């Protein structure tokens, strides 16, 4: 069991397509917003977790350029850490799991988790830097442009759609839901930009079957959270209980740990760096029968008032490419009843981040896990 661990607060920087401000400015904006939301002074932060790797093909992987690590954040914020780690090529869901392990072990009391994204000027974000050599695993993929513009996800989507009879209409249903949900998210990059069916279908193709609007928008932005044991919750903070986490190789572990099942979910935030990706775990968790996910969304079951509200903040397709942090934040807001006009039925909120062959999961809930006494020390902080 998770031992009574909560997310105590969440923060978001501004989200913008380009900026003269550097990545550290966004990172610190998000961190300070998270501390404020958790009612916590920075002196109380003694743990840190990040996942700074920039995944775009053209990334220079420059510290405080398009990535920001523990060392820079701790230095710029004057943090005194008992524990901290940056996870290599991992996701916000893994950040939560790592922080939970450190908190459960008693290594630290308040963990700051931070993920920042940045679009550096002068780079071709999607198609890379034209390197003349391909090292390691890249030698089997980069000479074929397989890592460009989500080609590998597009190739998988093609097979899925051919096998299950889905088409561009079903992809539009995903993007359409994202845009309409994003309209209720004041931070979303596409909040004031509805997308009609004709504009979607006429947009230029990128990697078939994906067109321009099937790809999330690279942005400058950051989000951050504070995690602690329930007993260390600052007075006035709003806790979401972490009742389960697992990796994609053993998805059933999420349900075993939480004592929940997919039928218990009140909402799901599923990673949508490309529109077709949301189908993976609707099918994968058995929420829909194999191949049933496109119809589930097309027929309205994923609407805010549907059977399982999906990506209620607009997803990455609506909010911008924060690499799963937005999904985690929305699950936190939904579980704490603070999602405002986006609020759906309170209950277990699923987060999945990552591609089909490398995902991880987190379950957040409004209440303490079964069998765990709810201990919220209102006097601390």
């Amino acid at each position, binding site marked *: 069991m998770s031992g009574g661990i909560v997310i105590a607060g969440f923060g978001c920087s501004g989200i913008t397509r380009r900026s003269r401000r550097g990545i550290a400015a966004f990172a610190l904006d998000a961190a300070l917003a998270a501390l404020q939301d958790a009612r916590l002074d920075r002196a109380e932060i003694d743990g840190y977790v990040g996942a700074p790797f920039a995944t775009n093909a053209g990334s220079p992987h420059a510290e405080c350029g398009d990535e920001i690590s523990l060392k820079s954040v701790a230095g710029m914020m004057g943090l005194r850490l008992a524990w901290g780690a940056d996870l290599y090529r991992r996701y916000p869901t893994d950040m939560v799991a790592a922080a939970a392990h450190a908190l459960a072990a008693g290594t630290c009391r308040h963990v700051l988790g931070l993920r920042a994204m940045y679009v550096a000027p002068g780079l071709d974000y999607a198609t890379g830097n034209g390197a003349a050599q391909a090292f390691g695993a*890249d030698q089997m993929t980069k000479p074929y442009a397989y890592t460009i513009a989500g080609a590998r996800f597009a*190739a998988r989507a093609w097979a899925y759609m051919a096998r299950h009879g889905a088409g561009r209409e079903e992809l539009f249903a995903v993007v359409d839901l994202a845009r309409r949900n994003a309209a209720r998210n004041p931070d979303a990059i596409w909040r004031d930009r509805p997308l009609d069916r004709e504009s979607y279908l006429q947009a230029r193709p990128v*990697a078939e079957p994906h067109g321009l609007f099937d790809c999330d928008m690279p942005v400058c932005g950051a989000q951050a959270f504070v995690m602690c044991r329930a007993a260390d919750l600052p007075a006035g903070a709003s806790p979401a209980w972490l009742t389960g986490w697992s990796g994609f190789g053993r998805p059933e572990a999420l349900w075993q740990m939480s004592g929940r099942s997919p039928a218990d979910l009140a909402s799901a935030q599923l990673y949508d760096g490309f529109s077709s990706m949301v189908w993976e775990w609707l099918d994968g968790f058995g929420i829909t029968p194999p191949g049933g996910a496109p119809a589930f969304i097309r027929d309205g079951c994923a609407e805010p008032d549907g059977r399982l509200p999906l990506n209620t903040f607009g997803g990455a397709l609506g909010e911008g490419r924060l690499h799963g942090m937005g999904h985690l934040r929305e699950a936190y807001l939904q579980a704490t009843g603070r999602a405002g006009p986006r609020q759906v039925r309170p209950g277990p909120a699923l987060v999945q981040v990552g591609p089909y062959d490398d995902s991880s999961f987190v379950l957040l809930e409004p209440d303490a896990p079964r069998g765990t006494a709810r201990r919220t020390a209102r006097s601390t902080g």
Partner: protein
Amino acid sequence: MDSTLDRPLPVTTLETEPFWEGARAGRLVLMRCAECGRLAPPLAPRCPACLSAARAPQTCSGRVSLRGRTVLHLPALPGHPPPLVVVECAVAEEPAVMLVALDPEGISERLPPGAALRLGFATEANGQAYAVVAGAGA
């Protein structure tokens, strides 16, 4: 022509050399486990099934099945202007081994997932041979 020289060159290791040497000879070469007989993907240092390091190169038939396909519309590869057909294929002798190839002739167009293809290798102006779809059918 000049830009063709910029298509990424594989930087090989002992593990991947048999694959790329086979490619130069127009053959699909994978490592077969001496213990359990399974074929391994080119990058694997040991048999993924039994983890044995005792292996020997084997020339495969080149028969594959179509696992995924996309048409890229971005200028993604020097010397290969869009649209670019990229396929992923499962090797017939060991479907767990997935290989990526270009399909410059569009042979995979209108074929369903799982369709039988033949993989070959085409040598570029940079002297390197890369996997291509060479034909359809078993």
